[in-house]
């Protein structure tokens, strides 16, 4: 038995991690069979209850970003999807339409290159690439650096095109008003339940590449039901960027969200 925790669970071979019956996982730097490991436990230990978010610093900056956006009546949307889901083409079309009515800025997150930002140039919006290098997501400090500099207080809508990844960006609050998840028809219908964190958090969900449906064994009804398992509230937009279909209802939703912020 482990004298540290009282458990009788043996650690997995080559690993000090083990799980207790109450669901707790922990590691020891000693074996469970070790009979004399009390030297690692000091009688002078102090215990401090904290209940502090691991990402508290990011969350605090994100909250400051959110306040700045609200003070300046800017709608900030955080677009998240897997790589290749059609975010950039959708934005190319969306920016051309949105920029007729609003001052739009775009921050594009990618690990490397400015390829996506280059594609979004000359579509009526201000565009800036952020390279995250080894990181798989944007975080709140990335956005904070741009407030009042690249992102002017005169901006109406800021769209953040996050790094293509369904997992990591969901864990980091940027200060956005809403996370927007994209799901392309070529990914199949079951991505939402495979990546539930994003699809349950999203305040809008955009189905992309709808023009490819005739060529795929893909069911709109099944995709919708998979989304609704996790998220009963988010509006679902069916779009084809290449055919410029379904964008009007998405733009209407953006206008409504902006109007709501302006009334606050």
């Amino acid at each position, binding site marked *: 038995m482990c004298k540290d925790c009282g458990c009788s669970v043996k650690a997995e071979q080559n690993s000090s991690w083990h799980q207790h019956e109450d669901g707790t996982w922990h590691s020891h730097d000693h074996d469970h069979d070790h009979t004399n490991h009390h030297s690692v436990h000091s009688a002078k230990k102090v215990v401090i209850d904290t*209940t502090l*978010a691991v990402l508290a*610093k990011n969350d605090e900056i994100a909250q400051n970003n959110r306040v700045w956006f609200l003070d300046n009546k800017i709608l900030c949307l955080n677009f998240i999807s897997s790589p290749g889901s059609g975010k950039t083409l959708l934005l190319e079309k969306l920016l051309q339409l949105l920029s007729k009515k609003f001052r739009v800025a775009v921050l594009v997150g990618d690990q490397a290159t400015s390829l996506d930002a280059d594609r979004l140039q000359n579509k009526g919006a201000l565009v800036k690439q952020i390279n995250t290098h080894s990181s798989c997501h944007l975080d709140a400090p990335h956005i904070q650096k741009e407030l009042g500099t690249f992102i002017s207080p005169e901006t109406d809508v800021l769209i953040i095109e996050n790094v293509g990844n369904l997992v990591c960006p969901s864990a980091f609050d940027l200060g956005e008003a809403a996370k927007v998840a994209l799901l392309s028809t070529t990914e199949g219908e079951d991505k939402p339940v495979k990546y539930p964190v994003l699809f349950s958090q999203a305040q809008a969900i955009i189905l992309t590449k709808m023009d490819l449906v005739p060529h795929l064994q893909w069911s709109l009804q099944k995709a919708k039901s998979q989304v609704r398992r996790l998220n*009963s509230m988010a509006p679902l937009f069916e779009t084809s960027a290449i055919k410029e279909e379904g964008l009007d209802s998405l733009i209407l939703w953006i206008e409504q969200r902006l109007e709501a912020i302006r009334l606050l």
Partner: protein
Amino acid sequence: MHELSLLENMLDQLSDMKQKYNLSSITDVYVSVGEMAGVDISFLESAYNLFIPSSDWAHLKMHITSVPWRIRCMACGLEQKVDDWHIQCRSCGSNDTETIDGTDFLIQKIEGEPHV
């Protein structure tokens, strides 16, 4: 895999706490990981195994508790665990539910040794 980044954030918080509480060392950290916090526990363990032994925190032990995703039904009020990634109320069948737990990644408790 953002768990290495999360681990760095955790160590940053621990450094602050070490100073704040005037500790010579922190020996144990107890974290809770919500099912919907976007943290993969096995990746977090891998990040710990990869990074901690050769760091200034070589003697830090991490204890992880998994917290299930829980919702409250807005129609009948029942609080329940979400099973099979389905937010439908198991009692009345309503989909009108709100999340009440399981979205946070928290440092719940630390143990350390004070300066003598």
